[in-house]
């Protein structure tokens, strides 16, 4: 596990640093915040004082060095707009985005699993054609338009839900329904394709001839093997949602990280913007590790420990070993043994 973690941290450190430097430089290219925060008739001394207070009078590399120094002290600067701690603003907005993303993905995955496997039962059947058309449409509807249609139908015409805000279950309906569409449509296509190929594998025939119930064949044998490509795509989609569903958050006034990010871009609130980028980058890093663990849970072959075990075996076959320095993670659940045996049988 530690080897794995170290590898991941090294692999993602460079892109992270480049992105932060890039954001830092690009944000300062958008213009001088003094123009936004000071009155129109501000004197030159007022401007100079504003720049000095926010550290904007120094050369950009000095500012950048100060910023990176601050990161190690967990000091992410203060917001020019509100005067609050930038990191706290980002952390306060993040749960709203995470809740929205989690709810959306859970609903999308469950729906896609049901529809995708139902469609794969009879390739090119009526159900398959309908579901492929629906999923295609769902994947290609722009979210801002869907949000507006939703507001028009449910909030204005029917008046059953509020147009924005986060209070009450009704307020969740439109944002979640809007966001679910694209992940749902994409996942149905992926799961359907993977299920079709999984159902034609020999181990399915074996399971059927052993007399396994149809439910067991689908849920235990086919779905488990079809889940890996679904997991990849679902991971990518979740990353997109965690990055902040900017459009949907803006339309529904959802106080999440996406809205905070676009606001701080437009207001040239550099510290908050950088804190948001950093926070989402860390969240995506953690998410990617979780996805990798998910692979390991699904498929014993990709578990790091499986590789280590093989290596150890090979070494043992060669001669005396040097002990087991490679004891890495082995999240073996009891559920895994069934799939392993079913795979071993064919």
């Amino acid at each position, binding site marked *: 596990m530690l080897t794995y973690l170290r590898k991941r941290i090294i692999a993602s450190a*460079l892109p992270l640093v480049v992105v932060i430097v890039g954001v830092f430089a*690009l944000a300062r290219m958008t213009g001088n915040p003094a123009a936004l925060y000071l009155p129109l008739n501000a004197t030159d001394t007022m401007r100079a004082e504003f720049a000095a207070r926010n550290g904007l009078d120094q050369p950009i590399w000095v500012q950048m060095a100060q910023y990176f120094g601050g990161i190690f002290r967990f000091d992410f600067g203060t917001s020019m707009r509100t005067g609050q701690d930038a990191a706290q603003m980002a952390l306060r907005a993040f749960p709203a985005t995470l809740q929205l993303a989690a709810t959306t993905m859970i609903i999308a995955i469950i729906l896609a699993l049901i529809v995708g496997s139902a469609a794969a039962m009879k390739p090119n059947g009526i159900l398959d054609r309908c579901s492929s058309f629906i999923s*295609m*449409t769902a994947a290609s509807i722009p979210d*801002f338009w869907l949000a507006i249609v939703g507001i028009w139908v449910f909030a204005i015409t029917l008046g059953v839900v509020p147009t924005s805000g986060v209070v009450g279950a009704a307020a969740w309906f439109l944002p979640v329904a809007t966001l679910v569409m694209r992940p749902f449509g994409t996942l149905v296509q992926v799961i359907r394709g993977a299920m079709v190929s999984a159902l034609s594998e020999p181990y399915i025939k074996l399971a059927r001839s052993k007399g396994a119930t149809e439910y067991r064949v689908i849920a235990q044998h086919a779905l488990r093997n079809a889940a890996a490509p679904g997991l990849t795509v679902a991971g990518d989609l979740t990353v997109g949602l965690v990055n902040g569903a900017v459009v949907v958050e803006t339309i529904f006034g959802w106080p999440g990280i996406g809205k905070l990010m676009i606001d701080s871009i437009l207001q040239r609130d550099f510290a908050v913007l950088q804190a948001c980028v950093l926070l989402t980058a860390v969240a995506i890093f953690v998410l990617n590790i979780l996805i990798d663990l998910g692979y390991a849970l699904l498929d014993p072959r990709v578990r790091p420990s499986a590789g280590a075990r093989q290596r150890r075996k090979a070494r043992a076959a060669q001669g005396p070993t040097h002990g087991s320095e490679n004891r890495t993670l082995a999240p073996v659940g009891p559920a895994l043994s069934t799939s392993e045996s079913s795979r071993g049988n064919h």
Partner: protein
Amino acid sequence: MSALEMAPPAKDERPEPKNRRKAKTQSESRVSMFTMLLRDRFATVAAIFLSLVVLTAIFGPALMGEHATAQNLMFMNKAPFDPANGWLYILGSDSLGRSVLARIVVATQTTLLVAVPAVLVALLLGSLWGVWAGYHRGRREAISMRIADIIMSFPSLLLAVVVLFVFSPSAANIVLILAITRIPIYLRTARAESAELQSRTFVDAARTFGTNPNAIIVRHVIPVVTPTLLTLATLEFCFVMLAESSLSFLGIGIQPPDVSWGLLVAQGRQYLQTAWWLSILPGLAIVLTAVAANVLAAWMRIATDPAQRWRLELDRKSTKAFEKATRQAAKMQTKKGNDK
């Protein structure tokens, strides 16, 4: 598609697959793409719709450009689908009495002029780079993939805002942003395909003859990866169009007085209570175009896949018969298995 066709003998006397092509005469040994398009009803409709959109984009502004800006106070906020107002106002009018139909038609050109070049630039750069990186492997591949990671994790919204504030917010700059942010998609796909291809025997053979790597890439690798990348590009067209719409919707894409579909939706949003058609109808144009592109991409994926192409090469009747037969055979087999 291409590796086989390149060898001349394969083209002339291709061995007939035993069971699937029985119904065919010798003369039509190869079905053209056009025929295959006609065989899929959904794809035909999608292709016709997309050609209409393209024609509208080319000729529409010349025909209806003046109506898009002409204000007519007699026809303020007219509801759509009312023939009494005349064909120009069939899709309604906005608060200044401008025809929604004319505005959508004019916006078509802007939308396509952003989406199509962005896709083409990203496709060209991304796939050439990816094929090159995948063919050579090693350090070149690793560095390319790192660059792709960096681009992918960069907030593209910030990039759009920077370009908007620093440079002029022209359509060309939006094309540039969208192209840069989408390059990694092609880069990754092309790299994966070409890394796999470079270990194949026919590439190895070319290498043994001493062919120069660039020539191998152009003559042996690129033809094989092209179908995959073209399909991807069709899907990406859909994505890029939606991205442009989102940017315009947020106010950091196309700027008025130019109009794009996304901008029309954004502008109509404040009139949602009184004139729903102002934002719903342009959005419908986006949805229809995106769905058509998606359907066409799905057809392309089948048509360019040698293992699946027969579905479109047979005419509809025999396809159905064949499917029925396979389904029955499968049923029989399971029955047999169950009986045992």
